[in-house]
Every structure is written in C-alpha cells, then in structure tokens.
C-alpha cells in the first residue's frame, strides 16, 4: 500500500508482495486513530488477549504431558507437578491463569457496561464479546474436569446433569454428553478434545471482535464520538506503550499469585482423586461461576408446568444471554455513566448484586442464603428488564461536552464522579 513508508529493503520486499506491515499499521499502528482520553480501564482488552496467549502456550505443553484417561489423569497431573521440568510452574500458571483470564474479562465487560460501549453502532462488537464469554466458560468448565479431582468429577456431573431438566429429551442429552451412564472415561476424553479445540475457536471470534472494533474504533470515557483529528491519537506508540505498561503491572500481580499463593483460588477437594461413590460435602464451582450457580439454585419452586430445575437452568443461561439484547434494553442515547447520574448508581448496585450472588453461590443452598440468592436473582433480571428500560425514559442525563478535546465546563464539578476513576490525563 502506498501509505506505508519504510526504508528497510526487506520490509519493502515483503510489503510489496504481502501488505502485512500496512495491515498491522492500520490495525494497531500509527494509522489507527484512537480517542485520546482512554483511561486505564481500556487496558483490559489487551490484557485479555495476553491471557489467551498465555493459556494457549502453557496449555499446549501441558497437553504433551497429560493423559486423558480416568486411571491416569490425576497421576499424570501430579507427575507434571513433581517430575516434569518446570511442570509445577506451567501448571500453576495455567490453573491460576483461568482465574485471571476471568478477572480481566469481567473488568472488561463491566467497563463496557459503565461507559455504554455496547450502544449503537457497537452492538455487534458487544454481542461478539458475549459469545467470547460463553466460549470461555465452556472452555474453563471442561478444563477444570481434566485433573480428575473430586471437584472436577462432581462439578462435571452436576453441570452436565442440568441438561436433564429439558423436557422429553433431557435424559438422552445427558447420556449423549457423558457417552455413558455416568461421567466416565468417554466424558473425560471428549472434554479434553474440546478443551483443546475451543481456545482456537476463541482466537477466531476474538479476531472478528477486533475487526468489529476497528469499524468505529474504541468508545471512550466520555462516550461521545471523536469529532476530528484533534480528538484522537495514533494507537502506536501511545496505546501500545500504555498497554505494555499495563501488562507489566498485571503480570507482576499474576506472578505474585502463581508463585506465592497458587492454591488460594482453588478447592482443596481437587487434590483428592475423583471417586464416583463419594460426594464432597459442598460442591462449589470455581469462583467465576458462583453468581450463575446461585441463580441456578435460587429457584426452588415449580411454576405451572415448568419444574424448578428447568427454570433454574433457563435463568442461569438467561443471565448471560440477556447480555446479547442489552443494547436494546438500554435505550438511553447517552453512553457514559459520567453523564447518567442514576445509571451510575444503579450500575454499582448491579455490581454489588453480582458479588452478593457470588457469595450466595459459595454457600449451601439453604436459608438464609437461599433468600439472598432469590432476592439477588430478582434484582439481576429486574436490572435488565425493568431498571434499564425505565431509566432510558425517566433519567435526565447531564449535558454532554461538545467534543473530547473540550471537556464539559458546565454541569458541576462533580460530574466526573468520585467512583474509582483512575488517572485520565489525556
């Protein structure tokens, strides 16, 4: 392409035949204009990409040592921990990497919620993100089964049994998922196969996600479109270096957990080999699934012809699928919560609700936790189906600034809000 300048003859030679350098320059380089006011909350997209790379790299070498057979799986993981060179390190990175991947992606999602990044014209970008989340969850769930500990086995059994809630064909679906009449060797083998496959599917969806991102570029903390060149800066070097700095800090935190408290986010029960005859006292999923688990268990009553189990399953999947229609539930023309005082407060109520549900999910399904779980579930869905549509009509947003480079002068000095806002110098 004509707009790519270089004096390096090798790069010129390649560029002429395969314009990969100008492609990169437009994708993450000097030709990709980016709003100049992105805060550090915008770092989490690149961090998610970093985690995906780390998980695939460690996963590939772990798969070289792992044996997907019910008789050998547990011991092969322990062999990795004891005998394989740096095996303990690679396995702890992969194990905690799952958690950190979700931490990063959840922050990325909540950032999108707070600043209205899902609104037109970025609905499809958002929906692709929801699909990525679903694929991640499936991958993480199947990966957790592979070490074949007690929690692996019973988690797999409980979650696959959910599908029995579907009327008529439910039982057949479960037997098909298992490849037998219990979670057993065929189940373990197919989970391993899919756990290896899905991350590469994930890479594909991520590419499309970024493609969609480039159509209109990043949203920004003010939630208004860039009006001209004065509002934007090239992605490289400004955001490449900012992303690299974010990666450094993130990796330091990640490393601290991997090296000093590698089992803090895991369950002790998973260091006991799977036993199909002994159920652990409390079956709890990994922390990143706890809110959904709480929603699942909060339904204890049948409604009309729908069994409690089926409603629980529908609501659990619905709690994620509802995100797909979020752009049409929140009709407010203003994106950023900075200019939506009510939405800002209710956003934090929603965050608190998710934490509440996570706490309930970690506890037994009995009163009083059950009532908290039911209240939390009601608010979760009310937030989407009642609060957001109502806010779109009732809320009076603050006046928007006319452009990114001329921040709003009227509307009170507290417009920026005191809520955890990192430096926004740009």
């Amino acid at each position, binding site marked *: 392409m004509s707009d790519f300048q270089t004096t390096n003859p090798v790069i010129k030679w390649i560029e002429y035949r395969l314009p990969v350098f100008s492609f990169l320059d437009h994708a993450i380089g000097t030709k990709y204009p980016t709003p100049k006011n992105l805060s550090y909350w915008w770092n989490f997209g690149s961090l998610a990409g970093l985690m995906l790379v780390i998980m695939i790299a460690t996963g590939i070498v772990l798969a070289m040592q792992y044996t997907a057979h019910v008789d050998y799986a547990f011991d092969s993981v322990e062999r990795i921990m004891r005998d394989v060179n740096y095996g303990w390190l690679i396995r702890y990175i992969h194990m905690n990497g799952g958690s950190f991947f979700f931490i990063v992606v959840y922050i990325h999602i909540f950032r999108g919620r707070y600043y209205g990044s899902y609104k037109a014209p970025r609905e499809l970008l958002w929906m692709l993100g929801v699909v990525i989340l679903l694929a991640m969850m499936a991958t993480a769930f199947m990966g957790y089964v592979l070490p074949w500990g007690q929690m692996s086995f019973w988690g797999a059994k409980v979650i696959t049994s959910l599908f029995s809630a579907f009327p008529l064909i439910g039982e057949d679906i479960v037997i098909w998922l298992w490849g037998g009449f219990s979670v057993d060797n065929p189940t373990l083998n197919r989970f391993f196969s899919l756990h290896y496959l899905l991350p590469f599917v994930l890479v594909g969806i991520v590419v499309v996600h970024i493609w969609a991102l480039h159509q209109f570029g990043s949203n920004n903390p003010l939630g208004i479109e860039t009006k001209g060149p004065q509002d934007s*800066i090239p992605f490289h070097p400004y955001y490449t270096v900012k992303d690299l700095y974010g990666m450094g*800090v993130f990796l330091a935190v990640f490393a601290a957990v991997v*090296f000093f408290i590698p089992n803090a986010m895991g369950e002790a029960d998973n260091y*006991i080999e799977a036993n199909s005859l002994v159920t652990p006292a409390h079956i709890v999923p990994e922390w990143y699934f706890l809110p959904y688990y709480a929603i699942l268990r909060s339904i204890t009553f049948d409604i009309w012809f729908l069994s409690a189990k089926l409603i629980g399953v529908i609501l659990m999947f619905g709690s994620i699928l509802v995100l797909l229609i979020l752009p049409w539930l929140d009709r407010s023309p203003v994106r950023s919560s900075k200019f939506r005082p009510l939405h800002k407060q209710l956003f934090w109520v929603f965050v*608190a609700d998710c934490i509440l549900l996570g*706490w309930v999910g970690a506890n037994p399904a009995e009163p009083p936790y059950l009532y908290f779980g039911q209240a939390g579930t009601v608010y979760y869905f009310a937030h989407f189906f009642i609060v957001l549509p109502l806010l779109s009509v009732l809320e009076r947003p603050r006046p928007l600034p006319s452009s990114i480079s001329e921040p709003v002068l009227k509307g009170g000095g507290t417009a920026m809000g005191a809520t955890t806002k990192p430096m926004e*110098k740009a």
Partner: protein
Amino acid sequence: MKRIIAGILGAALLSLGAQAQASESKALPDYSWSFDGIFGQFDRAALQRGYQVYREVCAGCHSMRLVTFRNLADLGYDAEQIKAFAVETTVIDGPDDEGEMFERDGKPSDRLPSPFPNDKAAAAANGGATPPDLSLMAKARPHGPSYIRALLAAGYEEPPGDFEILEGQNYNTYFPGNRIAMAAPLDDDVVEYQDGTEASVDQMAADVSHFLMWTAEPKLEQRKEMGIKVVLFLLVLSGILYAVKRKVWADLH
C-alpha cells in the same frame, strides 16, 4: 446510596469469612511454619524427623504413592542413605521371562511402599474405612499442615456426655463431624528420634505435618525462590515501561 452498597459488600465479606470458619469443626490453633510466607523454606531436620514418624507410625496403614525414594534427596539424604531406605523394602516386579511375578529389593526410582495391595484390602483391614493416601493430604484439606497437626496433637478428647460414638469411631474435635475412624496414632516416645529430639506427641505431630507439606508440595522452595526474582523483575520492568509511557505521552500535553 453508596453507603448502602458499601454496607451490602461489607456484610457479604464478613459473612464470607464467618462461613469459612464455620465449615471447620473447631477453629485451628495458630501454628507457625518455617515454610510460611514468601521467604518460607522447609526445615530439613523437621522433614527428616517427620519422615521417620511417617515410616514408623503412619506407613502401617497409609500409603504415599506419589513419592519415590529418589525424592528423599530433598530432605537432605545422600544417594547411599536413599539406597539404604529403598532396599529395606520389597517390590513385586515382573513378569520375568517365565511370565512369573517376582520380588526384588526396592530401588531409588521406586515409590514408597503401600501397606495394602489395593483400597479394598485397606478397607477390609481397617473396619471398612480406607486410610487415605497421604501424598497430597496437606493440600487436600483447608490449612492442611495446621489441620493435620491439630488433629494429631490436640484433637483426640473424651467425647462430650451426649455425643454418640459408635464402635470403631473416635472423637476428634478437629475432624469434620468429629467422628474419625483412626484411633489416636501418637503417644509420647513411640519413635526414637535419631537426632535426639524429644519425641513428644506435639513434636511428632508438627514434624509429620511438616513432612506431609513437603510430600504435597515438593517444589515449594524452588517456587518461592523463583517467585521473588520474577516479581522483582516485573516490578522493575513495569517501572521502566511507565517511564517510557510518560516520555511517549509527554508531547501530547
């Protein structure tokens, strides 16, 4: 509004903590271990004593199938001592050229011997309760080392008057449900320590718990040593990248 949210969050966190406590039968004593903390390392003498307790007491019923004799080098034993430990044991190997299984002396590459040929035999010999493998015990229970030590050293008590204990059960305040099949395994001086340490019940419980932490997490020392270097490196790198970021962004302001 913010205060309400903070209140909800605070309450949730508090009860999370309370819940973690409640799932234990009794709050564990606050033992300290040489392997605690980011600079924590194993105590070789304690590991060797703990191995002696395991070998002379626990190994009568509990297997240790993930640990091999060669691993004992971590405890500070040399090749000859390890070989000596190994040859004391008999391993069933084979089949030989005639298709027969045969017995031979243990080798450093062999796993520590299991007291029973399989779980069913173990259960049959122990009134139906299989003594669990101890390789990972210190990671398979919350606060493993302290739990094991408390269970062994302080948990066995007379049951309260109305507490029903069946034949083959023992009362232990730290065991979930308080009914444990294992009778109190330690008594003062059931082992005679080679280094002359007094073999009190608490000493032996502490040593064997220390040893079990090593069997569960043998790479703990390498992990922490490497961790300090890696985290320091990343912090310095982050500092430099922050300086670079400041430099790059400087011309915007």
